[in-house]
């Protein structure tokens, strides 16, 4: 009797908390769409076809092309993941296999510390240290490249720690089996351990990508925020996230609504990427 009562209580508590999280997500998405609607009605395809991003409070007076910022966000994320993906995986492999125990432990602490540094601190460092270095090489310093480097640093811990955990979970039997077959360490690693840890590694990659796409402050501080399609790594760019943060303070009416469209666009891009990743990993139970 007593147990059933407790069971019921637990069940209600679980249902309630699940419902709360679900409802909040739905509310946010709903708000995003609701607030976007005026701009979507007034500008419509203009978000993709207008000549530039020169927003105005009245839709007829402005230009609202978001595509350069979509391109900026994608370029930033692509570059950051091209760096952080392999680096994170390799550092996890180093920790799990070749590093002596004390070094692996120390390295993990350092990576965890990296994950804990606030993004504004990364931004500050990027602005004060990294951008001037790039400037010496190629003006103006604040650029796509600076953004990529800072973002790579920021998402590296996610990639490294999740890959590390995934590799640590590979059963010892696989390694022993490979050893007993006279397979070299390198081959065991690449052909057995990494495929066995694949789903964890991919999860790490997706989460890191999500973080890169959504990062705002550090990106805003180091990329220069010029709305344009990047033609080289040294061009300043503006990300969708920065766009919202930069203009929210003074945006009104249709302009304000257009910023919600920026958010909607960002959500769409993330959703598409996650869907794509799910599609790639699904249906392949083994490597």
């Amino acid at each position, binding site marked *: 009797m007593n147990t059933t009562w407790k069971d019921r209580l637990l069940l209600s508590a679980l249902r309630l908390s699940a419902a709360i999280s679900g409802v909040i997500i739905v509310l946010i998405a709903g708000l995003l769409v609701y607030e976007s609607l005026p701009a979507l009605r007034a500008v419509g395809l203009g978000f993709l076809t207008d000549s530039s991003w020169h927003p105005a409070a009245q839709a007829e007076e402005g230009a609202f092309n978001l595509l350069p910022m979509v391109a900026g966000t994608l370029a930033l994320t692509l570059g950051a993941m091209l760096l952080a993906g392999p680096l994170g995986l390799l550092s996890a492999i180093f920790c799990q296999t070749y590093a002596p125990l004390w070094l692996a432990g120390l390295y993990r602490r350092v990576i965890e510390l990296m994950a804990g540094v606030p993004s504004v601190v990364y931004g500050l460092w990027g602005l004060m240290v990294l951008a001037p270095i790039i400037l010496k090489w190629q003006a103006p310093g604040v650029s796509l490249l600076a953004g990529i480097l800072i973002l790579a640093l920021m998402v590296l811990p996610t990639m490294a720690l999740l890959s590390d955990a995934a590799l640590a979970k590979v*059963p010892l039997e696989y390694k022993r*089996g490979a050893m007993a*077959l*006279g*397979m*070299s360490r390198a081959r065991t690693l690449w*052909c057995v351990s990494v495929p066995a840890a694949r789903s964890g590694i991919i999860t790490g990659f997706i989460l890191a990508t999500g973080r890169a796409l959504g990062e705002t402050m550090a990106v805003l501080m180091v990329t220069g925020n010029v709305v344009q399609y990047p033609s080289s790594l040294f061009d300043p760019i503006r990300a969708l996230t920065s766009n919202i943060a930069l203009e929210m303070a003074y945006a009104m009416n249709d302009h304000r609504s257009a910023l919600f469209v920026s958010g909607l666009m960002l959500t769409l891009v993330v959703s598409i990427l996650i869907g794509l990743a799910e599609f790639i990993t699904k249906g392949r*139970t083994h490597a």
Partner: protein
Amino acid sequence: MSDNVITDINGASSAPAENNACCHPQHAHIERARPSGPTKMAVESLSIHYGSVAAVRDITLQLPKGEITAIIGPSGSGKSSFLGALNRMVELAPRSRVTGRVAMDGNDIYAPGVNVTALRRRIGMIFQKPNPFPLSIRRNITLALAEQGVRRKADQERILETVLHDVGLWDETRDRLDKSALELSGGQQQRLCIARALALNPEVLLLDEPCSALDPISTEIIEELIVRLRDQLTLVIVTHNLGQACRLADTVALFWVQDGAGRLIEHGVCEQIFNQPCEDLTASYIRGRKG
């Protein structure tokens, strides 16, 4: 042969433990063993330590070529450690130390300069729990082959088909070679592991309780397979199942913990060990198992 022995074990429960006015353990196999083939592996005064703890001490044992040697004994008597010393897998355990001599075809496998990975290809090993890689059935077999230098697709396919036939898995898997090996049943997985080892054409196969995680039917299939392999290979099987030792083995070695380390108590031809053991320990162990 095996049928007779089983009857002996189950029927003649008066197996003599008293009339053994015989032999020192170390000489048991020499005096009692029927004429057997040349020695494939020779172990002399082998001791294995993990840190300061001895797992086995002073084991001397010959493994005759083309025969099945069963190693029996209670848990913790160092059977698996001994097996691991035969292909140097024991070295993967932290702080392990091996002393004594293990020779294959007269060559010390612990000599400096021995290529361990090449050695392990000549001495295959099957583990207690089936451990196919989480890859396709095909890749489980071709992975190590490629490493051994068999790179041509046609050669790999040929060997794949041969070894899967050998373990009786071909008809069951020919249509799903690219499916995950983890979708196979436990018994099939263990046979795949054996096929994977056989693909490298080893000279010796070490089996560490290969059936203990399997159901009786799978066990029977694996046992039949092991018997069939006797012609091609030298086999060593660690088992807790005395009936299995009796059904399969040509010679049997009993390990026991003495003075905190595993020792070889008795080694001899299967019939002798089961029906006329020289040592009291052997007799009581076998009687105990008989109930």
